[in-house]
């Protein structure tokens, strides 16, 4: 056994998040860890990589009992981790980031020559020689940053590499690059713990799968023997009757339309969103999907073109103007753009209402309304004034949905609505999106997960290089989408 965690337990603020969990990893093995959000995956990984210390339990590395007092010790022992959120310094260069914490030094001084050379090697070794070691990380795209993140882990010559949701921010073709990389590392005899929500990946890559639920170990099984259905059953403890809710029966009236919309990141946008419809937006990372949502929400407004809302022209100068016009935006990056972490979940749910329709009094009525919404979408928490940062990703996302439901919006923009959310919550969110549509709202949904995109959308608009590459009807195939997105196939 390369790495072995046994009977590991951990609590935060009196809440037990891991109950005597065990996990083992062999050299050259890819061991997937799956489970709903709040199942304790990330906590377990943080313990394995020394970021947290377990309250109880043991860690053995190559048979040796170890106890990491910090990430530094874990790294020294050869345990590297690629975190869910990027751990990079935007102001510093690729090389400086890659070697942060273990800069090569000669006679007490940092050996910048060596640092530069080693970084170049590592980049080359994973076929990313396009990337300069001296590039400032802040100026790189998300995918490139992901590569830096991986190189950073490789620079440690890790024997054990933990990947926590490595594909979360990658588009499908970039995911392929990652697969290749993982297999390459596997051949080098590196043991890889692979945490993911994307079952497809898990089956593609892993030798064994460990399922966690509510901080407990459910089972560990060989991928060969496992089936997706079985896995989902283990994860949520129930069969998922229907994965995607039924589509709209008849297209509604036009709600919002853009003609000739453009700005720094977008050009010639022609788009219509209809009530009762879910319009999916496909495309690669950086193809302008998020830029489109942000333009429609006034966060990075259109500088040209015209927007009609219910037939009336409207200027979306700022998020505020959009919110007032009845547009809602569920962002891609919940932590940075969605939550106000130290406020109670009730306050988070009320944020938009308070910001746009301020009142001196009448707080109670509002609170009551918000409570109903929260209950309606099954948010689980210790109390309504619990700080939201202590909730699981799924529950956090639900609270943010409640924030917008309270505004009864006419148009909803979802950017990766189910990113980092467990299967159970995922279904709930999907149902909710569909319900909102059938209640008459126009929904725009950006997703990098093709199954989700295809499963949810009534129409799919695919973007490429800041423009709309083409539109596909419901029931289009993955190939159609990828083809349009990569430009290998023309619009029908």
């Amino acid at each position: 056994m390369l790495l072995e965690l046994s009977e590991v337990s951990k609590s935060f603020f009196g809440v037990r998040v891991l109950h005597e969990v065990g996990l083992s990893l062999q050299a050259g093995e890819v061991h997937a860890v799956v489970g709903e959000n709040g199942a304790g995956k990330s906590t377990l990984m943080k313990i394995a990589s020394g970021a947290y210390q377990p309250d109880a339990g043991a860690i053995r590395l190559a048979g040796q009992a170890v106890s990491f007092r910090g990430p530094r010790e874990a790294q020294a022992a050869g345990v590297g981790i690629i975190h869910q959120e990027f751990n990079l310094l935007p102001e510093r260069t690729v090389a400086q980031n890659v070697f942060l914490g273990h800069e090569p030094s000669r006679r007490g001084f940092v050996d910048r020559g060596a640092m530069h050379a080693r970084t170049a090697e590592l980049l080359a070794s994973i076929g990313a020689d396009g990337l300069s070691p001296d590039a400032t990380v802040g100026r790189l795209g998300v995918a490139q940053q992901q590569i830096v993140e991986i190189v950073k882990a490789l620079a440690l010559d890790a024997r054990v590499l933990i990947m926590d949701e490595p594909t979360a921010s990658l588009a499908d073709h970039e995911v392929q690059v990652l697969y290749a990389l993982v297999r390459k590392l596997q051949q080098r005899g590196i043991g890889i713990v692979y945490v993911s929500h994307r079952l497809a990946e898990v089956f593609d890559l892993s030798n064994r799968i460990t399922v966690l639920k509510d901080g407990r170990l459910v089972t560990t099984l060989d991928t060969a023997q496992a089936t997706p259905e079985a896995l989902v059953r283990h994860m949520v403890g129930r069969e998922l009757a229907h994965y995607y809710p039924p589509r709209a029966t008849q297209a509604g009236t036009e709600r919002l339309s853009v003609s000739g919309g453009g700005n720094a990141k977008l050009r010639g946008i022609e788009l219509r969103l209809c009530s009762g419809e879910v319009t999916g937006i496909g495309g690669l990372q950086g193809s302008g999907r998020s830029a489109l949502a942000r333009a429609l929400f006034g966060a990075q407004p259109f500088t040209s073109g015209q927007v009609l809302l219910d037939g009336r022209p409207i200027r979306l100068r700022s998020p505020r103007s959009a919110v007032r016009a009845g547009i809602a935006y569920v962002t891609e990056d919940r932590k940075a753009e969605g939550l106000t972490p130290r406020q109670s979940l009730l306050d988070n749910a009320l944020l938009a209402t308070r910001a746009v329709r301020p009142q001196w009094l009448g707080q109670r009525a509002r609170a009551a309304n918000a409570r109903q919404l929260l209950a309606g979408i099954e948010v689980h928490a210790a109390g309504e004034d619990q700080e939201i940062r202590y909730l699981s990703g799924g529950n956090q996302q639900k609270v943010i949905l409640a924030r917008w439901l309270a505004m009864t919006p006419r148009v909803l923009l979802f950017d990766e609505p189910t990113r980092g959310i467990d299967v159970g919550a995922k279904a709930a969110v999907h149902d909710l999106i569909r319900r909102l549509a059938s209640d008459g709202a126009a929904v725009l949904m950006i997703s990098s997960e093709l199954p989700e995109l295809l499963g949810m959308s009534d129409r799919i608009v695919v973007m490429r290089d800041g423009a709309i590459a083409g539109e596909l009807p419901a029931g289009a195939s993955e190939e159609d989408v990828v083809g349009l997105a990569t430009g290998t196939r023309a619009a029908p």
Partner: protein
Amino acid sequence: MTLLRQRLAAIDSTRGVWVALVITLTVGGVLVYADGGSLFHQSSIVSMLQRAAGLGIVAIGQTFAILAGSLDLSVAYVISLTSLIAAETMAGSEGNVPVAIAAVLAVSAGIGLANGLLITKLRINAFIATLGVGLLIKGYLEQGYAGPAGSVPTSVQRLGYDRIGPVPLSFLLMAAVAVAAWVVLQRTRFGHHTIAVGGDLDVARLSGVRTDRVLIGTHIICSICAGITGLYLASRLGAGAPRVGSEGGYDLESIAAVVLGGTVLAGGRGGVAGTVGGVALLAAIDTIFNQLAVDPFFKQVVRGVVIIAAVAIYALRRRKAGRP
């Protein structure tokens, strides 16, 4: 080539202040000339450099604290305290000089350590921690000293008064400190880690940087620099003075100099070169106004405006460069 590009990048963030300095000196020079004086008269240059030296050394120390995302409001009192320790330990005799220097460095390092521990171990906000420590020292000084005390042997006073041509020894001392600091920040792990900690504490920690040690380290350096300034002032004043630091306003002025130099108050960006420029700029403004015999109160106003304007311009440039 690439190293060159790196160096250019490093300069870029702190170039602005030097431009400002050149402009100030030219405009000031003309004004003073029109006023019938000369800004570049030996004596004015000397006093300009002299004035830069004291503030410069503190500000360089402060740069470390700020780069690491912290700050130190206790420096002014550390300066007063160390000036007294120096003068009293020396007690006018050559023999005691080494002891005195050692004592100063030890005490200031100790204070820096205390600041660092309060901030890292007790998680007290740097603003409050250093303010509190400053108040403690202030209380000690007010309780223990009724005015200047101790005396400095003439050999040490030379540090405060001697000069090579128009360049005072004290200025060379500052230059030395500056170079050392630059090397530490650019070329050592500690330097890299300091900037990392200031850039993003969590990233640094998860990358295996011992963030607490780094923060403590920067505070020790900051205090030691204040200690050196205390030594310098003692040599200049021939004695230790319990209010020389606070009256000199070294706490806020050092921070002002650092941000004038383009170092971001939040940390993670900037450097010593800028700080030296910031100090030089403040000194230049000072001297010019002296030459023009401008009402010292009005000078305050200008200082305030300059500081705000400078930082506003940096912010603007960074946004143009498309960074937060």
